[in-house]
């Protein structure tokens, strides 16, 4: 075990989501690891998960040596997490040995050692061909034996034995005063020490873990929040990845035609983050609903993290604007994760989100609203930063709504996270002339030109409609003012139409008169022409008569000659 390793330390994956990332692969293979923490922080579960994953996913059988719980209690306790220990035992992938330490039953009469423990462990290891071992909680031995000198010597021998056998072991220990464990186990197990913590701040509990040391390997050094729920343990690696990540050129619709048009290229970039901020009742959730509805229509998976309303409430309320989200839920395209912000700490919210994203794998996420997350500003800010990072790193388009305090021009939260957001749409209430109208405008939208207009929008039965703005000399008019202005314009137009019609009629009249004159002249002309014709005919007749007469005279003259 002291041989120098040029290559990386061999590691044994725990299979606990996120935890292996922090450990850069897993626990040190073939060595004991100390997992310590106060009562109820999940030490036993950590051990069980390590073994179950080893047996079911990595083909490494394990031995669970329990000094506290009986095998059947242990199996019952972890059954709620979906672990079937009995089955693993039956199929020879796991051996459980409950070591009962009862001081009152033990009389010490001279020299002894703990060879029995070694025999039992050795037998259990051999019976399943174990590669992994959990000793939970070995410190219980200290309550059963008075001779701590022997115990300490035996523990030292035990850990050496574990190393010699090449077993990857988790040894749990109760947190002690001034040291990691009550009996100073860290003295014996120094390869890898993991500290679990269950802290209550402002009545909210957050589980955290920290890798105190990991000899021979780099590891994440922060405190990482982790979850224990029906899905087992999941650890959230909170260190954000770099800013460099693949970006998408794809544009996805905001689900509101007018808003898409305001964004010029027809929507938001896929994988971008959108902030929707506004005071109460400006329609943040409704716009979010449109966004989700559009995504579901495209067949994409969506998730709504709701902090203020339940899934049913949101569905019902959005039905009033013609959005049927229920159908998407039933189609399996949409999932709600509703939880009160105060139910968990910020870290826990983040961790749950992390886990939910892993499980549901959505392409669009709506967080409604981020302003519900309360805590010290710095914490809220880092949480949001990581939330945005979390979504971005997975290429998920995220829409965050934020409730701004009425009256304040700039909200702290908005300010703090606006730099993280690719698009920022602000919803406003405009109060004028005894009414309140909703308007929105795009503060920014990275990578796309966008309208600079403030647009009024209305919530109709058919959804949100953006109304063409009235921009007049007195500024942008909304609501009744806009309507009356429009009415005024309408009347003016009507008047103009009347005038034009009138002038048209006059012109027609004049044309008629002229035409009449033309007709009279024509008639005169015709009459003149008739007269001329008659004269011509008369002249021709006279000519003919004269000719006839002269011929007759000539003939008569001829006969007379």
């Amino acid at each position: 075990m002291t041989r120098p390793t040029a290559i990386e330390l061999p590691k044994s994956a725990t299979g606990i989501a996120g935890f292996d990332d922090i450990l850069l692969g897993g626990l040190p293979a073939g060595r004991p690891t100390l997992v310590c923490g106060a009562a109820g922080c999940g030490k036993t579960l950590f051990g069980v998960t390590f073994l179950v994953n080893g047996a079911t996913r990595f083909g490494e059988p394990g031995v669970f040596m329990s000094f506290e719980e009986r095998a059947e209690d242990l199996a019952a306790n972890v059954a709620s997490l979906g672990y079937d220990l009995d089955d693993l035992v039956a199929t020879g992938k796991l051996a459980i040995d409950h070591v009962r330490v009862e001081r009152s039953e033990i009389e010490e009469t001279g020299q002894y050692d703990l060879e029995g423990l070694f025999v039992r462990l050795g037998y259990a290891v051999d019976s399943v061909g174990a590669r992994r071992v959990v000793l939970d909680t070995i410190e219980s031995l200290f309550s059963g034996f008075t001779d701590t000198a022997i115990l300490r010597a035996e523990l030292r021998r035990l850990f050496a034995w574990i190393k010699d056998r090449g077993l990857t072991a988790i040894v749990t220990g109760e947190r002690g005063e001034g040291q990691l464990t009550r009996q100073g186990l860290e003295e014996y197990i120094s390869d890898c020490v993991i500290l679990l913590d269950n802290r209550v701040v402002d009545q909210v509990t957050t589980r955290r873990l920290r890798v105190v040391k990991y000899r021979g390997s780099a590891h994440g050094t922060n405190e990482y929040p982790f979850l224990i729920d029906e899905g087992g343990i999941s650890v959230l690696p909170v260190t954000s990845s770099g800013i460099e990540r693949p970006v998408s050129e794809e544009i996805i619709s905001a689900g509101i035609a007018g808003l898409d048009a305001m964004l010029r290229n027809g929507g938001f970039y896929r994988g971008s983050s959108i902030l929707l901020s506004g005071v109460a009742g400006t329609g943040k959730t409704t716009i979010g609903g449109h966004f989700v509805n559009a995504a579901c229509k495209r067949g994409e998976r969506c998730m709504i993290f709701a902090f203020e309303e339940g899934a049913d409430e949101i569905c019902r309320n959005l039905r009033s604007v013609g959005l049927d989200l229920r159908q998407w839920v039933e189609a399996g395209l949409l999932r709600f994760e509703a939880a009160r912000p105060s139910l968990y700490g910020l870290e826990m919210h983040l961790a749950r989100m992390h886990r939910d994203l892993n499980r549901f794998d959505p392409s669009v996420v709506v967080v409604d609203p981020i302003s519900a997350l309360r805590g010290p500003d710095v914490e809220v800010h880092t949480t949001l930063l990581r939330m945005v990072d979390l979504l971005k790193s997975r290429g998920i388009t995220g829409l965050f709504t934020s409730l701004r305090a009425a009256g304040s021009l700039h909200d702290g939260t908005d300010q703090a996270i606006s730099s993280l957001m690719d698009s920022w749409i602000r919803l406003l209430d405009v109060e004028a002339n005894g009414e309140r109208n909703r308007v929105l405008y795009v503060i920014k939208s990275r990578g796309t030109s966008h309208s600079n207009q403030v647009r009024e929008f209305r919530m109709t039965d058919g959804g949100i409609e953006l109304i063409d703005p009235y921009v007049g000399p007195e500024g942008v008019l909304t609501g009744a003012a806009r309507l009356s202005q429009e009415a005024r314009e309408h009347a003016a137009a009507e008047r103009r139409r009347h005038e034009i019609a009138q002038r048209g009629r006059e012109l027609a009249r004049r044309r008629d008169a002229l035409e009449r004159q033309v007709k009279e002249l024509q008639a005169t002309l015709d009459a003149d022409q008739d007269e001329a014709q008659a004269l011509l005919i008369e002249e021709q007749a006279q000519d003919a008569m004269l000719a006839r007469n002269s011929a007759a005279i000539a003939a008569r003259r001829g006969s007379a000659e």
Partner: protein
Amino acid sequence: MTPEQARLDDSLPDADADTEHYYLRLYVAGHTAKSIAAMSNLKRVCETHLAGRYDIEVIDLVQNPRLAAGDQILAVPTLVRRLPAPLKRIIGDLSNTERVLVGLDIRRKVDVS
């Protein structure tokens, strides 16, 4: 159960305990100095205090590791008093005779007689 309680519970059958038979089981791990010492110490105590009414079974855990879990053996050598009830466990090489007698509930009887 505290040892005191155990003793109280035992007190009734102890009235005619002279005829009680002791079934003892000694767990050792290989032929170490400690196990050899334990065996000879046990023989000596039994011959002195329980002559004729004891059975000793010696189990070598190295050969029968399976048996270690059954009787909850941790330390070796361990002497288990299987009968009379209740079950008693004495660890060590049994060199401290006084404590062996207390552990086996023989001590008190010696005092009485």
